[in-house]
């Protein structure tokens, strides 16, 4: 069994590394070309473009997602009546297929018949062609993605908030701390491990964004939403440049690995702070 896993996870990893050092077409022989693919990546205009787009997506999505998730978790960890309904409403998109969600949002964003523009028209605004506008397509995809996944982080935050010992709140109350003070001095410090974990996981997830781009924009208009994984997919499975695509994938892997190691290093500190909770 372990052998099976090694075969299916580690072996392809090694093979991918080797492939990234070759010129590997769909048909015909492959040639070892050393670091040429990586050199080419460095001067590939499109690579820098898609890397920029990926960073843009991540930088837009992560703060929005985390802040909204935290806010929702705070609101939803109160014992209010009917809270389950809200939790469910916010969590349902997490369950839904990304493709379905993206298709539905494509309809929402549609220029003429889209709900968003129809609603805008009701207040007298002529909405833009969201997904066909270079400046608006990426923000539109970001909003769609935040709403899709915010429920996931929300649930993690709710779980963390519920584990904060009640006694701390009582002590804060005795000290006369207001709501804001209690949040910044009790809740937030106690849940930093979770915040940190979710930030890193969300960043990693964002760097690998693909499905919603594929469905909603196909990387367009004029490459404004073409992200790294889309570019990898295009090179590998549309153009069959497996060597170059593998090198691109390894660039992604290095970025993810650095983030994971960073998390590991920092997490030790957090876990230490956590004590034995």
């Amino acid at each position: 069994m372990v052998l099976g896993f090694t075969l299916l996870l580690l072996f392809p990893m090694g093979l991918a590394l080797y492939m990234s050092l070759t010129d590997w077409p769909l048909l015909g022989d492959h040639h070892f070309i050393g670091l040429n693919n990586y050199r080419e990546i460095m001067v590939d205009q499109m690579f820098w473009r898609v890397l920029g787009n990926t960073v843009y997506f991540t930088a837009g999505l992560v703060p929005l997602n985390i802040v909204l998730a935290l806010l929702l978790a705070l609101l939803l960890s109160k014992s209010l009546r009917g809270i389950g309904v809200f939790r469910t409403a916010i969590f349902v998109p997490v369950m839904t297929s990304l493709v379905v969600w993206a298709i539905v949002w494509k309809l929402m964003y549609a220029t003429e018949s889209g709900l968003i523009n129809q609603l805008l028209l009701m207040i007298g605004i002529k909405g833009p062609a969201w997904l066909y506008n270079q400046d608006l397509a990426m923000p539109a995809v970001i909003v769609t993605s935040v709403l899709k996944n915010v429920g996931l982080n929300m649930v993690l935050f709710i779980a963390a908030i519920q584990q904060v010992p009640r006694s701390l709140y009582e002590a804060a109350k005795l000290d006369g701390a207001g709501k804001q003070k209690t949040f910044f001095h009790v809740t937030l410090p106690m849940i930093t491990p979770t915040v940190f974990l979710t930030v890193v996981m969300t960043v990693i997830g964002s760097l690998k964004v693909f499905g919603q781009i594929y469905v909603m924009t196909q990387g367009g208009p004029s490459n404004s939403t073409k992200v790294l994984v889309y570019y990898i997919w295009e090179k590998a499975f549309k153009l069959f440049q497996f060597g170059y695509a593998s090198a691109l994938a390894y660039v992604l892997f290095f970025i993810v690995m650095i983030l994971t190691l960073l998390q590991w290093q920092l997490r030790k500190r957090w876990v230490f702070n956590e004590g034995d909770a």
Partner: protein
Amino acid sequence: MPKPSVHTAGGAVGTYLLLTLISLIMIVPFIWMISTSFKEPQSIFTYPPQWIPETFRFQNYIDVFRLIPFHRFYLNSAYIAVLVVLGTVFFASLAGYAFAKIPFKGRNVVFLVLLSAMMIPHEVTAIPMFLFMRQLGWIDTHLPLILLPIFGAGGVFGIFVMRQFFITVPTELEEAAMIDGCSRFRIYARIMLPIAKPGMATLTIFTFVTIWNEFFDPLIFINSRELMTLPLGLSLFTDEVGTAWQYLMSATVMATMPLLIVFFIAQRRFIEGVAMTGLKE
């Protein structure tokens, strides 16, 4: 437990308003999806937006099956999901048990290697996997879609979940059973599995949702229409049927149904599972 008494009436109303607004933004796409799925083509473009169609056109739901091999997508998704769930739960519980309870040389090292393998971006291994599958002649078959999740990262995740459950079982329980002459496998089947039922349920739901929604793998491994799964089939038809939103929407409604049913049945367990493992797709 006493309710936190700090809410003023205004605060509670504000909270409700905010929550209602956000929930609406979450739900409106679904309502719009359902609404559009019943519309006549010409009433999709009407202004102001029509929430409840003038006439419900149930025919859309039937036409979808004529326009695209939708029943194929459905059957493919269903049987692949079932096989993957069964395979994952079976192998993950066996391996999870081994990692939790059977001491063997290098156990922790192997476990760590497995966990770190989970960090490998799928996109990196997808390319060699594609060539590997091509070598085996498995491109445009369902085999990669069934075997890769069971023995790939999804399987590792399963082992991780199951191990966490088995580890909580006291060793004394096992020892007692062994003294009574129970074999390893009997212990696993008779003592361990019943205890790990919550873990297996969590894993089942997780795996089902993941596989039902999986998009990347079918995209690279499947070419024939007849072999496509729901997400892939729908995504390819955004352009073909793209202008006919009413069909696309009735198809997405039907594609989402099984998930919503699973979710409403297993809601609490699923959310707890997410919170417990803290892991994402």
